């Protein structure tokens, strides 16, 4: 059984000039102890999806529909206080901005202990011990001293490790990592990804990794969901998706990954021409049609449904070829 099942999720925002249909009809599932990557350009709805799972979006301007079942319970139907029992406890989240995601006036120790105190009834000494263990787990040297320090005394990479420690303090079943390495420099990025992969291997926590970087995906994900304009356009295993992409958007994205080619330091970077559609207007046909090299008139008219085009490979494109499936 899947750990998390999202079905037909719609997350819409009220803005001054219309309703932003940021996520529109997304379905996906996360299995136990797997890493699922959600990939797409900025504004495709991937972060909104993760915030919708934890219900962290501002309630007064947001509305959601569909269902998000976690262990079979629909998170969208829980009360706010039931939801608080899940946040940080069964589902944790780490964010893109390690520099600003920690409270500047509280010690690191206090911020780790807070999560434990919110969800467990343990003594202060146990909490301290746990906090120290967590810092050691995420590879921070001299954890006893670091517990007394404030975020501004730590580097960006260290702070992201602290964020991971906070997220893991209550042994969550699911960790949502929203662009966890984007703000870090390249060497630190690799270390943090390695840490996430390690933790996954050790603790069997499922991870939703949100990123725009297919390089990151290749490194640690098992399966990939490609999002575009608030919708899922393709879903497959990592190998399948990276080697045999079927949606023209995924093909474009892969083209946009900087590759160090055989010719030495020659980098190839193909931009996808055109602009992301305005989500405040209803789109009749395929959301990618205006940028798609293969688009025909019918694409502007009829929105393609998600179809299985190969084993464990789902695509929303009228022209994606079927293969390897019994008729």
């Amino acid at each position, binding site marked *: 059984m899947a750990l998390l099942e999202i079905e*037909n999720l*719609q997350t*819409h925002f*009220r803005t*001054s*000039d*219309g*309703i932003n249909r940021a996520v*529109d*009809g997304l379905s996906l599932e996360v299995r136990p102890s797997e890493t699922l990557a959600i990939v797409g350009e900025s504004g495709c709805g991937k972060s909104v999806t993760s915030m919708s799972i934890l219900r962290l979006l501002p309630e007064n301007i947001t*509305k*959601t*529909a569909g269902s998000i079942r976690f262990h079979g319970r629909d998170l969208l139907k829980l009360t706010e206080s039931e939801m608080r029992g899940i946040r940080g406890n069964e589902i944790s989240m780490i964010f893109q901005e390690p520099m600003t995601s920690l409270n500047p006036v509280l010690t690191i120790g206090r911020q780790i202990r807070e999560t434990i105190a919110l969800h467990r009834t343990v003594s202060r000494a146990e909490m301290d011990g746990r906090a120290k263990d967590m810092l050691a787990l995420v590879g921070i040297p001299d954890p006893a001293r670091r517990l007394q320090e404030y975020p501004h005394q730590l580097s960006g990479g260290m702070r992201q490790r602290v964020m991971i420690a906070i997220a893991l303090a209550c042994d969550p079943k699911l960790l949502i990592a929203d662009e966890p390495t984007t703000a870090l420099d390249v060497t630190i990025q690799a270390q943090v990804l390695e840490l996430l992969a390690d933790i996954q291997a050790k603790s069997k926590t499922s991870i939703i990794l949100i990123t725009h970087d297919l390089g990151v995906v290749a490194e640690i994900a098992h399966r990939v969901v490609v999002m575009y304009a608030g919708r899922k356009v393709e879903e497959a295993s990592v190998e399948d998706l990276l080697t045999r992409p079927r949606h023209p958007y995924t093909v474009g994205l892969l083209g946009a990954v900087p590759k160090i080619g055989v010719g030495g330091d020659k980098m190839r970077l193909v931009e996808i021409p055109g602009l992301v559609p305005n989500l405040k207007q209803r789109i009749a046909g395929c959301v990618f049609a205006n940028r798609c090299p293969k688009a025909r008139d*019918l694409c502007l*008219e*009829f*929105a*393609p*449904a*998600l*179809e299985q085009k190969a084993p464990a490979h789902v695509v*929303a494109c*009228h022209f994606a070829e079927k293969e390897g499936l019994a008729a």
Partner: protein
Amino acid sequence: MTPPALLGLAVADPLPDIMQHTPPRRGLMGLARRNVPASIGAVLLIVLTGIALFAPWLGTVDPLAISPTLRARVPSAEHWFGTDMLGRDIYSRVLYGARVSLFVGFAVAVLATAIGAAIGMTAGYVRWADSPIMRLMDAIMSIPSILLAIALVALTRPSVGNVILAIAVAEIPRVARLLRGVVLSLRELAYVEAAVSTGSSSAKVIWRHIVPNTIAPVIVQATYICASAMIVEATLSFIGAGTPASIPSWGNIMADGRALWQVKPHIVLIPAVFLSVTVLAVNMVGDGLRDALDPRMAKTV
């Protein structure tokens, strides 16, 4: 066009709308609806200005005319707001008093803003002048503003002009500080630096690039100064150190009514309501302007 089923296409079901958009109203009414308090404030101010301007034609009598036989009367058909200890008609005095309050508020706002802006821009733009100017401004700001105004009017012959000057002096440093801050942040911006490096004269740079960017915060600040100046004027008059007693101002009327406060509260209460409503109106307009002109400032102030 051929139905999609015939082409063998799998078509996604359209998704429902889960939220309805209500487009904002446009035009003057829309603006008023979005800024209800500011609109109320503006209407009140227009009415009060009208009262001040047309006081002689609004059924008033000479606000200074004494009638010893009609002292301290309660409101009646003859004297709508009653009379004070000297038998003067409070309705007439309050209407004429609007002139003093509004004029002082407006004059202080203009004067303090103009001088403060000039000082602040100089400090922000001329590096060597910055420190001495700002130390002086700090010193003036260290003297609580009502106290400074009190001390200044105590030095001079009481007159409306001196009251305006005294209140303005206390407000100038606040404007200067605001403007200096704005100029300092602007001069770091690329286009101002570019203008300086291409050899535009200082005056030109200030006029072209800095002045337009400072107008919004200055207008907002000026409204708040106007409101506070009206309060300070009334306060000074009330303790007997402000507008000369021969000129009816709201503060003076209240000062005259102090002695009878417990038995004839209306003498103090009526001008008090006028004053409070006027200041409230100016503040509501100020808040509305702040929200409309500078969304970033709206968050911080």
